[in-house]
């Protein structure tokens, strides 16, 4: 059970119902055997309890953490999160402002403040706070570009960046997006979003009247390659059942229907 909780912690899963089930039993029956792990488990279970409206369990965890770590900012943030869950936003805000007065670089508290504004539907204020937060750390890894530089092996950042570029539109952004989709695929050749993204961006570039014949030709090739890879991926995933035969055909037809033939 301990290992399950650890795995979920490390992989940032938000399967709160399961965490509560496993964690509650662990805390109630085996607390003495957990050693120092118990504190991080209390934290993990408390957050999950808030997700599941289990204030009773959340209070138990918070109580133990408060006893053990008096005056801790980390625990104060958890107390704030509980107040947020109870929709006592003003009290929660006070907690976070207290933390920030003591330590203005506390990103967790800043993040919670933005979450409160979002929960209250105050999007303009949330965006303003978010911009302040980003300015404060403008140089640090808080934009996708920085994330990619510091995590060059992370195919997800590449793919997300590509999607942003794709949405922005225009030939330059489409070409950039195609390149980043391709890069994401190099890092992980099973990333389906990157594959579809490559297909779409290349197809759109090929269909544009603004590009040269050579660019058109190249992008038709990229799109065709992507299409064949997509078909192959679906074939590999299928087990030959009736349903998957249908979806294979659907994929082929979809690719055909989206094929933007160069004029």
């Amino acid at each position, binding site marked *: 059970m301990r290992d399950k909780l650890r795995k979920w912690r490390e992989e940032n899963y938000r399967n709160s119902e399961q965490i509560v089930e496993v964690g509650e039993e662990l805390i109630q029956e085996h607390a003495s055997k957990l050693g120092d792990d118990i504190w991080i488990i209390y934290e993990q279970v408390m957050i999950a309890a808030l997700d599941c409206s289990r204030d009773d369990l959340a209070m138990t965890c918070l109580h133990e953490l408060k006893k053990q770590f008096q005056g801790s900012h980390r625990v104060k943030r958890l107390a704030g999160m509980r107040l947020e869950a109870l929709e006592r936003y003003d009290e929660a805000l006070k907690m976070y402002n207290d933390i920030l007065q003591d330590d203005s670089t506390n990103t967790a508290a800043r993040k919670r403040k933005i979450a409160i504004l979002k929960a209250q539907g105050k999007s303009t204020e949330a965006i303003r706070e978010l911009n302040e937060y980003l300015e404060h750390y403008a140089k640090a890894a808080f934009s996708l570009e920085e994330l990619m530089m510091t995590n060059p092996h992370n195919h997800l950042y590449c793919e997300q960046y590509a999607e942003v570029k794709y949405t922005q539109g225009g030939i330059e952004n489409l070409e950039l997006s195609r390149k980043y989709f391709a890069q994401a695929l190099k890092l992980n050749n099973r990333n389906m979003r990157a594959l579809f993204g490559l297909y779409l961006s290349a197809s759109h570039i090929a269909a544009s009247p603004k590009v040269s014949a050579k660019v058109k030709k190249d992008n038709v090739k990229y799109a065709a390659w992507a299409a064949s890879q997509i078909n192959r*991926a679906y074939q590999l995933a299928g087990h030959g059942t009736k349903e998957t035969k*249908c979806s294979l055909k659907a994929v082929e037809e*979809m690719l055909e229907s989206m094929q933007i033939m160069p004029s």
Partner: protein
Amino acid sequence: MMEISLTLIDTWCKENKYVIAGYYQANERIKETRPNQFAEKVAARIAENFSEAALIMVDNSKISMSCYDPAISVFEHHDNKWKCRDASIDCCEDWSEAQKIMSALLEDRSYDSLIDFDNHLDDLRNDWTNPEINKSILHLC
């Protein structure tokens, strides 16, 4: 990926004699039950291919094991705008039947195995047509 998902689902529908008849959305904030721009755009796209398309907003504050009042509002496309259908008019064929089935699914935690298109993109073997859940629903009818 919305482009991809709509096209793929549409192709599958034609193969299987279905039609995309609408779009439902449940907002992140419980108190927000109106459709946002995104919902309206998607529903409008669907309405291009199916004139009687419905845009359904889920009211999560009303969902419980025994909700007697329908937890959804249905919006229809009139004059390029999405207007809410009168709540006093029945929105479903049989809400109490639907509610019974929903409670049974909730109790069984069927939502743990529910696959959406995003899950499908994570792993192609995840079947967004959810055959197992659909079978359970037929059983419960």
